């Protein structure tokens, strides 16, 4: 990493590194004593498997498989005769042309090439992935224990997430259905082809030659046209899937749902670092007048329970989540405020609240992958702050997910000095 002289440049490096953590050296930090295996981790792994990365070199395995399938389809289109799946190619011509066509119905079913079968396997694999995501969301629903007054809104949010997953599953099921239909048609065509060949053997030689010269080219042309149509449909379906990477819960088109248009944010300070939380996900600001009640056996970042407005708010040491341990001074002043997440019993402790700002989505550099910090929505260079995805933060906390590494960024260390 290059070192810069000005604190501003250092902060830019820090924010940039937050978004591109994988490009940095792994820090040598002590892991937090919290569960290493959790559903959120599996969920994050499932999402981080690909699909969010914009750079071609980081395209997902799924996208690569789909691209290979498309390439194979194109090869089939260019040289259909070379494909073993194409029917009705007779090597030896018949000699007698005096034939009367028998009253048989020629098959019109569309053939299917092997790559289409491979596409079917890919689609099935995607459906399994989507179903795994759905089952994880259902598990999260079972584990969610909310306050009675907030339970309804939480259910609405969860329902929205479930609907998003269902839409994705429905799209993939449609593609699977198309592929299955094409596969069934191909099987029917092959059966009919075999039947025709058997009947041809019983015909007189004149009939066979007539079939070879007049009927077979027509059948081949029809088959080729049908194959082209099937191929085009399959390519369109594959392109549609490849162009829509899976989104994390609450995200749409590469950014959170609340950031589709101009949105408001509240800036707050945590041990010198400026963070921003969208007002849409802000539940309230609590002034700490009484020290929170600690619970034994909890991780260090859990500061305790704060009673506010007939509600128990679990207070989180925000610095331990967003700052490297080296920068967290033990003798620092206690937190003064808590930013409560909307519809949640979790609150992020902070030193001070700055002001609210209005942002256009284009002003934010949105994260492109979940990585180790799913709570990070993006960074705003203009205000030198990290934008928090409060809903994701809440999910991580609810699930007791703590094996996240805080940012250990040399740029911030430079800034601190």
């Amino acid at each position, binding site marked *: 990493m290059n070192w810069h002289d000005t604190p501003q440049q250092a902060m830019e490096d820090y924010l940039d590194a937050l978004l591109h953590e994988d490009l940095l050296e792994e820090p040598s930090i002590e892991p937090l*004593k*919290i*569960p290493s295996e959790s559903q959120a981790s599996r969920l994050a792994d499932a999402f981080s498997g690909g699909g969010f990365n914009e750079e071609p070199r980081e395209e997902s395995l799924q996208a690569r498989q789909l691209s290979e399938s498309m390439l194979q389809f194109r090869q089939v289109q260019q040289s259909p005769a070379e494909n073993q799946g194409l029917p009705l190619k007779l090597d030896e011509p018949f000699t007698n042309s005096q034939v009367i066509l028998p009253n048989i119905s020629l098959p019109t079913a569309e053939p299917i090439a092997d790559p289409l079968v491979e596409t079917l396997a890919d689609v099935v694999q995607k459906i399994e992935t989507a179903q795994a995501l759905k089952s994880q969301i259902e598990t999260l629903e079972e584990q969610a*224990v909310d306050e009675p007054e907030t339970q309804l809104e939480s259910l609405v949010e969860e329902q929205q997430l479930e609907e998003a997953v269902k839409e994705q599953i429905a799209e993939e099921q449609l593609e699977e259905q198309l592929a299955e239909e094409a596969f069934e048609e191909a099987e029917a065509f092959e059966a009919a082809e075999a039947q025709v060949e058997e009947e041809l053997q019983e015909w007189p030689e004149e009939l066979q030659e007539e079939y070879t010269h007049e009927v077979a080219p027509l059948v081949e042309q029809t088959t080729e046209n049908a194959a082209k149509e099937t191929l085009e449909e399959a390519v369109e379906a594959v392109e549609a899937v490849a162009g829509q990477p899976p989104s994390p819960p609450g995200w749409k088109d590469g950014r959170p749902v609340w950031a589709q248009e101009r949105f408001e944010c509240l800036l707050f300070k945590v041990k010198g670092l400026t963070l921003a939380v969208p007002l849409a996900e802000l539940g309230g600001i609590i002034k700490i007048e009484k020290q929170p*009640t*600690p*619970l*034994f*056996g*909890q*991780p260090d970042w*859990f500061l305790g*329970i704060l*009673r506010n407005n007939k509600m*128990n708010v*679990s207070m989180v040491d925000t610095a331990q989540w967003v700052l490297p341990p080296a920068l967290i001074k033990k003798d620092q002043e206690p937190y003064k405020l808590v930013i409560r997440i909307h519809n949640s*019993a*979790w609150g992020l402790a902070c030193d001070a609240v700055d002001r609210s700002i209005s942002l256009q989505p284009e002003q934010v550099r949105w994260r492109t992958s979940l990585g180790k910090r799913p709570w990070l929505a993006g960074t705003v260079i203009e205000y030198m702050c990290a934008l928090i995805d409060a809903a994701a933060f809440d999910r991580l*906390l609810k699930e*007791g997910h*703590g094996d996240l590494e805080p940012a250990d960024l040399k740029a911030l260390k430079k800034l601190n000095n």
Partner: protein
Amino acid sequence: MSSPQKFQAESASDLVLQYVTFRLAQETYGINVMMVQEVLRYSEIAPVPGAPDYVLGIINLRGNVVTVIDTRQRFGLPASDVSDSTRIMIIEADQQVVGIMVDSVAEVVYLKQSEIETAPNVGNEESAKFIQGVCNKNNELLILVELNKLMSEEEWSELAAI
């Protein structure tokens, strides 16, 4: 409706439980009153060589030997000196009678089942599973402890062998 009748009507719809509260490290904890046999002032505890580190020792309770557990150590709290308010609560858990040493014993409180809230449990420490729930009482958060989970089966067996 008179007050006792009202209380009974409420009790029918919402179970009322009694908890004995005690203090440890400036926090208030509660255990089900049905598990508490008696509360003793601090008396000399005879250490037992080779006993687990969470065992302070044994006391003679009217001719019976009772093992005393270091509650602070068990909860992962820092050690503290014995004071005038230090008490030994004799409890029956997992069919065994043991003593737990606490900073002080406060009172018996009535809690409705609906008032007890689930405590956030994000830790993987063994002690985290002792917490049954939390309840706000008199502007103070009460941490309810599940004594049956205070020790594992093996540890209860160890205690029985002392």
